């Protein structure tokens, strides 16, 4: 069930996060939105298991995760600071067949990310772009600051070039130069102004910290989005997952 993955790349995503490429022997496909578990074992046999969402599209040869460093984490500082290309990791998965997007899904899709919650949503964006699925994808990305953003070049390019994808940002602490508004917390009004309307009947995926996810999901239901169309993935707090 646990297998060995070779670390083939490690690129800083932001000052406190890193995208790590893994080559997994015998990896037989996966679904956009799934996660893997990573198990680290200390010399004395102590083990720590954490979950990390996959960022790449299922057809990519190298599976990538993006790990955000938690200040007092047991696992993430090692993965962000110390893990080197050529190292090996014990992984389980990808697993989880529920918080996933399948190319056969004809519905428009609204993705809502809080901070590093963008990772599994990026896998869906990439899978959608790589498919011939014509449905509209829209991403709302809530961030502390421009420097905290993951995948910025790729999202900017896709936002400009793709007719099927668009991205909107909410900055909660600091905004880019020339941004039309001051930093602001996400409110129901801002949320609803930046997502596909209820009438478009989108499938909605929300990912981020528990409080963020539950708040957004509650606002969506209050605004008339059917609860059955909203799927959530909560990261928890420190020591939690992803």
């Amino acid at each position, binding site marked *: 069930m646990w297998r060995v993955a070779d670390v083939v790349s490690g690129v800083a995503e932001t000052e406190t996060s890193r995208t790590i490429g893994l080559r997994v022997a015998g990896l037989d496909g996966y679904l956009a939105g799934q996660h893997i578990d990573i198990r680290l074992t200390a010399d004395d046999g102590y083990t720590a298991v954490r979950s990390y969402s996959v960022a790449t599209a299922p057809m990519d040869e190298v599976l990538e995760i993006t790990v955000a460093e938690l200040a007092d984490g047991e696992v993430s500082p090692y993965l962000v600071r110390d893990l080197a290309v050529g190292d090996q990791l014990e992984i389980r*998965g990808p*697993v989880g067949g529920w918080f996933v997007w399948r190319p056969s899904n004809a519905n428009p899709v609204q993705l809502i990310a809080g901070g590093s919650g963008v990772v599994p949503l990026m896998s869906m964006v990439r899978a959608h772009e790589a498919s011939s699925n014509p449905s509209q994808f829209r991403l709302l990305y809530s961030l502390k600051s421009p420097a905290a953003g993951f995948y910025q070049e790729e999202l900017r390019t896709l936002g400009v070039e793709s007719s099927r994808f668009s991205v909107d940002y909410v900055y909660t602490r600091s905004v880019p130069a020339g941004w039309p508004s001051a930093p602001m*917390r996400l*409110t129901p009004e801002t949320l609803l102004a930046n997502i596909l309307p209820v009438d478009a009947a989108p499938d909605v995926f929300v990912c981020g910290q528990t409080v963020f996810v539950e708040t957004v999901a509650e606002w969506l239901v*209050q605004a008339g989005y059917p609860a059955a169309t909203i799927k959530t993935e909560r990261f928890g707090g420190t020591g939690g997952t992803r």
Partner: protein
Amino acid sequence: MSGNSSAAWGSEDPRFEDQDIAGIPGNPISHLDGNAAAGALWELFRFDIIQAIGRCKHCGAVSVVARATVYADGPGIVVRCDSCEGVLLRLVETPTRYWLDVSGLSYLEIDREG
């Protein structure tokens, strides 16, 4: 949209500082989705129980396991009903054994194609 919900998330509410995962050292670990238990449960059951539909023995709610609430900060995993918070499933792993309690689930409906 009620005025209350905006006010509740106004600038004085420290919880809203928690939007980014890196920003909350010392915060207690909070609950997660059923999805968070997918790895351990997959290893045990060899099918994706997260996609299964389960009935809560406590309140009778029928829901996909993924919508249940997971507490993973103890020595094991506790899965609670999203409706009544009753315990559906408990799993503890030791180096040599699993300890599994599914007494809170009166049934599971599993897609054989899933």
